[in-house]
């Protein structure tokens, strides 16, 4: 029953995100494109606003004693810096070739884009191969060898607590106010950003959805002592840890769930419900506004770009422990160094790909 509340809660929050992201044109790849190709930072500010809201919300939950962010995958002391850089960069390349990141892929599927459905399948397969298959051997055997074991969790409050003293809670309050506040202030410093309510709507709702995601997994789905294992558990998660939204591994787990449907031990997890929720929310908005339209591939090059994009996002997203939402907002909200590094690597990979595409047109 608890599992149903968790997956149901994830679905509802993701539904809201899907509908609002569709309405407001929230798109992390679009944010990079607008910035790099035309100097418009409004959608980048929308993404940063979402991060700021998520940081302040997640920290408030932790300071109130409702969740413990160190129970998520992001603030591990194992700082796999090369994985964050390579995975993030390749994810950025992939999302540019594939018409958007993992969440945008789901949003586009909801609006009738069959190209994004193909991206979904290739992303999911590559993600699964990176979790447990051929690519996983390279990830673990090569990339994850480049790691630093930090003396504390890799989140900034834990590190500063270790190095400078003061309590972790004090650092959480100070850093979340400063970093979250600065990101929100930066977003609203632009007159263009303030002129359209859609930017505020997209940024705030996305940030709050991630905060709500922590509540669903970390409060509703948290069991101090599971009756079967007698250990702490986060119900209906694929990682066994506290989760908020991410859109790479859940796409792989959705394919796995569909392929192993008759295995009754499997349940609809938080991540699977979240991925379905985004598609449903986007589709509901598209149908309500009569903007649903079927889209297909233009030609062989377009097809190849989307297949490669999906593969790179699947590999990169698992390697870097998340996507533009998973590391870029959920992970960032824990103030983990790896999340911040991945965010930068994704933006760099996407921007570099756009520069290459433009150079190729000129050649």
């Amino acid at each position, binding site marked *: 029953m608890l599992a149903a509340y968790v997956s149901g809660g994830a679905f509802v929050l993701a539904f809201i995100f899907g509908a609002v992201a569709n309405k407001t044109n929230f798109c992390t790849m679009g944010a990079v494109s607008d910035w790099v190709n035309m100097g418009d930072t409004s959608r980048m500010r929308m993404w940063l606003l979402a991060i700021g809201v998520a940081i302040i919300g997640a920290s408030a939950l932790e300071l109130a004693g409702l969740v413990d962010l160190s129970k998520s995958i992001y603030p591990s002391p194992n700082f796999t810096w090369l994985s964050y850089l390579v995975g993030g960069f390749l994810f950025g390349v992939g999302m540019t070739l594939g018409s958007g990141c993992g969440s945008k892929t789901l949003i*586009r599927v909801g609006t009738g884009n069959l*190209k994004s459905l193909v991206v979904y399948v290739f992303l999911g397969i590559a993600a699964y191969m990176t979790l447990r298959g051929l690519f996983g051997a390279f990830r673990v055997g090569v990339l994850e060898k480049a790691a630093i074991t930090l003396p504390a969790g890799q989140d900034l409050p834990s590190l500063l607590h270790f190095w400078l003293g003061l309590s972790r809670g004090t650092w959480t309050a100070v850093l979340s106010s400063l970093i979250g506040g600065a990101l929100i202030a930066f977003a609203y410093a632009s007159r263009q950003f303030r002129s359209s309510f859609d930017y505020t709507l997209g940024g705030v709702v996305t940030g709050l959805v991630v905060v709500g995601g922590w509540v669903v997994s970390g409060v509703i789905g948290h069991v101090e002592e599971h009756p079967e294992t007698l250990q702490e558990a986060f119900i209906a998660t694929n990682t066994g840890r506290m989760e908020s939204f991410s859109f790479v591994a859940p796409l792989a787990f959705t394919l796995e769930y569909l392929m192993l449907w008759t295995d009754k031990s499997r349940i609809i997890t938080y991540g699977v419900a979240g991925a379905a929720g985004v598609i449903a929310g986007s589709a509901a908005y598209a149908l309500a506004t009569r903007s649903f339209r079927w889209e297909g591939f233009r030609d062989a090059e377009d097809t190849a770009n989307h297949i490669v994009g999906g593969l790179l996002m699947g590999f990169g997203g698992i390697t870097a422990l998340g996507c533009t939402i998973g590391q870029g907002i959920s992970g960032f909200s824990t103030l983990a160094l790896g999340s911040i590094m991945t965010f930068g690597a994704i933006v760099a990979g996407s921007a570099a790909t756009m520069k290459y595409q433009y150079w190729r047109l000129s050649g």
Partner: protein
Amino acid sequence: MNFDQELDARGLNCPLPILRAKKALTGMQSGQVLKILATDPGSLKDFQAFSRQTGNELLAHAEANREFTFFMKRK
């Protein structure tokens, strides 16, 4: 509406329509008009922002049969 060059960006998604339009405008002279055909649902917002940011005037736009048509004047 009269135009000097046409760009077919149908079937392409962000960021390619913007990149191709940017490239096409670079090769045109000031005052010339580029007609752009596109199908990406985000095209309208993208080209409005592109026009605002770059100063290339969006003279007109229309949507028919799930296709967008834009006329953009090179600044």
